[in-house]
């Protein structure tokens, strides 16, 4: 049973974390030696023009006042407008965040669906052939630089086999002839909802390679952790007791070993997932995936404060949310936590 005070405490800590990260990011972006006004005005602009823009954006105000104003507009649900593109940050996130989530969710689903059973299998057959092969593969997968994997995947599946498209999220021809109606921003979902199957197939084709590349690292980690965790648990006295009771191996694995072994794996997977929201920048660059990593990287280079803060906020919320979820899951699976 989950206790209400536990929930409340967690929610309060989460809020403090979000506020702390937001404050820190705000102060950091402001104190760094950079002048967004100059960047907005363009390098051609004369100093008078730049000064005018600075006061227009309130960048010449005291820092606490700027922060208060920011929090005020945030409370009204306004993420602001990009200094550089003049586009609404909320609208841009509505485009770029689903793109990244679609990519990362597919990648992680793949990592978990393959990694967990493979890890269990390797753990059960400790030091067997499967354990050794997956062990080496996992080390390779965790160590391989993501750009190398991306280039390799593109070379094999595009240049050599011609099976999959090189990059992008949807080909120009399909996008022009079979325009996708925007519902959730997840292309596979939107095209399926509107029955636009030509675009669905095209989007799926474009998703496979980058999702595979995103999946490799978490897959390797999940596999190894699951295996080690399984080995640990299988050596514990309660498993010996279960065996002595004459339970079937299947029952021992599913009801006695797995619930204990899977907890740390899910916690780590959750953290990796939250990190991947902004951490898939290289994959997004090499696959020309219009995601939030690329979006925030451009914003950082341009000292474009509103998108930087908005992405920080959103990714912190996701991070905190995932951690919270993992906690709940742990509580549900492991009654010792609340007992």
């Amino acid at each position, binding site marked *: 049973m989950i206790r209400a005070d536990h929930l409340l405490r967690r929610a309060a800590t989460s809020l403090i974390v979000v506020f702390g990260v937001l404050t820190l990011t705000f102060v950091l972006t402001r104190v760094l*030696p*950079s002048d967004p006004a100059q*960047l907005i005005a*363009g390098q*051609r*602009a*004369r*100093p008078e*023009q730049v000064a*005018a823009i600075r006061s227009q954006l309130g960048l010449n105000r005291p820092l606490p006042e700027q922060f208060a104003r920011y929090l005020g507009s945030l409370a009204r649900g306004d993420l602001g*407008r990009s200094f*550089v*593109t*003049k586009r*609404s940050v*909320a*609208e*841009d*996130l*509505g*485009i770029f*965040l*689903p793109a990244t989530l679609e990519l990362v969710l597919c990648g992680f*689903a793949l990592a*978990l669906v393959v990694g967990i059973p493979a890890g269990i299998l390797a753990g059960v057959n400790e030091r067997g052939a499967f354990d050794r092969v997956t062990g080496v593969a996992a080390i390779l997968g965790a160590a391989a630089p993501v750009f190398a994997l991306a280039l390799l995947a593109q070379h094999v599946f*595009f240049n050599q086999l011609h099976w999959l498209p*090189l*990059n*992008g999220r*949807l080909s*120009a*021809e399909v*996008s*022009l002839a*079979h*325009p*996708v*109606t*925007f*519902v*959730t*921003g997840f292309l596979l979902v939107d095209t399926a909802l*509107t029955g636009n199957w030509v675009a669905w197939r095209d989007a799926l084709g474009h998703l496979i390679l980058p999702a595979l590349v995103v999946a490799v690292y978490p897959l390797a980690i999940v596999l190894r952790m699951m295996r080690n965790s399984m080995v640990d648990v299988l050596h514990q006295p309660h498993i010996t007791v279960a065996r002595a009771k004459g339970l079937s191996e299947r029952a021992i694995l*599913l*009801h006695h070993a797995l*619930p204990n072994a899977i907890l740390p794996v899910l916690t780590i997977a959750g953290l990796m997932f939250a990190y991947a929201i902004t951490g898939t920048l290289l994959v997004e*660059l090499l*696959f*020309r995936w*219009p*995601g939030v990593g690329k979006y925030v990287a451009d914003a950082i*280079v*341009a000292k474009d404060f509103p998108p930087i803060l908005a992405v920080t906020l959103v990714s912190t*919320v996701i991070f905190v*949310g*995932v951690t919270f*979820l*993992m906690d709940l*899951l742990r509580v*549900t699976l492991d009654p010792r936590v609340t007992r």
Partner: protein
Amino acid sequence: MQPRYALLVSLCFLAVLSGCVTAPLAPARAQPPAVEVALAAGANVAHAAIEPAAFADFDPSSACTSELWVLVNVYETLTRYAPLGSQDALEPGLATSWAVSDEGMTWTFKLREGVKFHDGANFDASAVKRSIERTKELGQCAAFLLEPISEIQVPDPYTVVFNLAYPAPLDSILASPYGAWIMSPGAADKDAAWFAAGNESGTGPYRFARYEPGQRLVVQRFDDYWRGWQPDQFDAVIFEMIDDPVAAEQMLRAGELDFANQVVLTADQMASLDGHNGLRLDAAPSLGNWVIFLNHRHPPTDDLRVRQALAYSFPYESVMAHTMLGKGTLAHGPVPTSLWGHDPEPSRYIEDLDQAASLLEQAGYASGLELTFSYDPTEQTMAELWQANLAKIGVKLKLEPADFPIRWDAAKSAPEKAPHAFLLTWAPDVVDPYSYLFNMFHSEEQPLWNLGFYSDPAFDALVDQARRQSAVDQTAASALYVDAQGMLADDAAAIYASDLPEFNIIADDIQGFVTNPSYSHLVIWYDVRRKE
């Protein structure tokens, strides 16, 4: 809970969580229309690469960077810069003819009739007035170019008169791709957000058909374009947004792009793509050059003899041979030789280490000295070649590579501590010697581009006089600009490392592409065809 559900539950939760995060952000939009023109059987479609930062700003009053690669196909100016080697520097655009009176103080433009904006409005003098006034009021990008304009009059629908506060070559200023675009009155009423959403209304040959942020922009032919259409011209152009040079190279190698420029690719990548899979490298003179400012406010480069020694120590020939694929040309001075008003004589400073050593000795630095050089990391070769030369005469050149915005900020905020030598790649905002001489050498109270902090009232006066003169007599102005460059050479104000070429990678079957240095890094897609 059964453990076997754990995975399922966590995945569902992640999905719900991501839904919660994105749902409030999701813009509710209807299905975008299909772009028929681009899809008609046998449609001519071109694919060009563009940097995403390109789409920083679609507002024609403030667009200042590579979004101009697109806008030049969508908007037009009253006059246009003619390609190199043309008889006149300018050619008619939306204006058919123009005249200047009152010693450069009044400019009268006769406008083209029968021109339509993409939103259906008629092009006329009031649209010109609205557009230029909007850009001037907004005050972004190169709006300072319009500063001489004090009043715009519309005596009749196809005549527009500009009264200036002081004489200026307005015909050349109004050809600038930085802020002299003409937009429809309807568009001039809109704010930056309207343009940022992918809207436009110019008179150009192409209009926006589809904008997919972060992915691509599609333009298609504007049927009512005033110059008319031939069947073999491109029906649509797809600008693919690419941040990563490797991705751009892969797409070119795969035949997915017809055009990419120097901003998208590195020079080495371009060299390797030349001749590959129906691609060719196009190299042409540009209006860009490399200027190495020598700091007049930071000892020891405040000493003329030290600056002269540095100018004699620079390895001009080997830098040209080892950078820019060997296609750079010898600079005569700050105004590149591809533009009027350049010094007809080669620079007096050639590589001469003996001369440099003796100048240093005269200045009292026979025992050597240490200097700093700020440059972009991409120009490492140049820096090392110069460093090696200087080492031979006892000068230790401390290399300080950094990304431009960072080193620029640092230099202009503290002149006395700024590097002794500072490399700038200059490209003019308006195609005029004034852009070079004013921006880089005119006295500045608050440093912006004059990063050697040169200041000489006599030079300032001469350059300003030349500008006024250029409004009425380019030949006389040219002579004054040459004199001004003589003064800079006397003062060894800077080192002119090289006049720069422009590189583009273009598909072999694209015909009619002529690099016009006034419109660098872009294609005017109306002018080119695909060979059958």
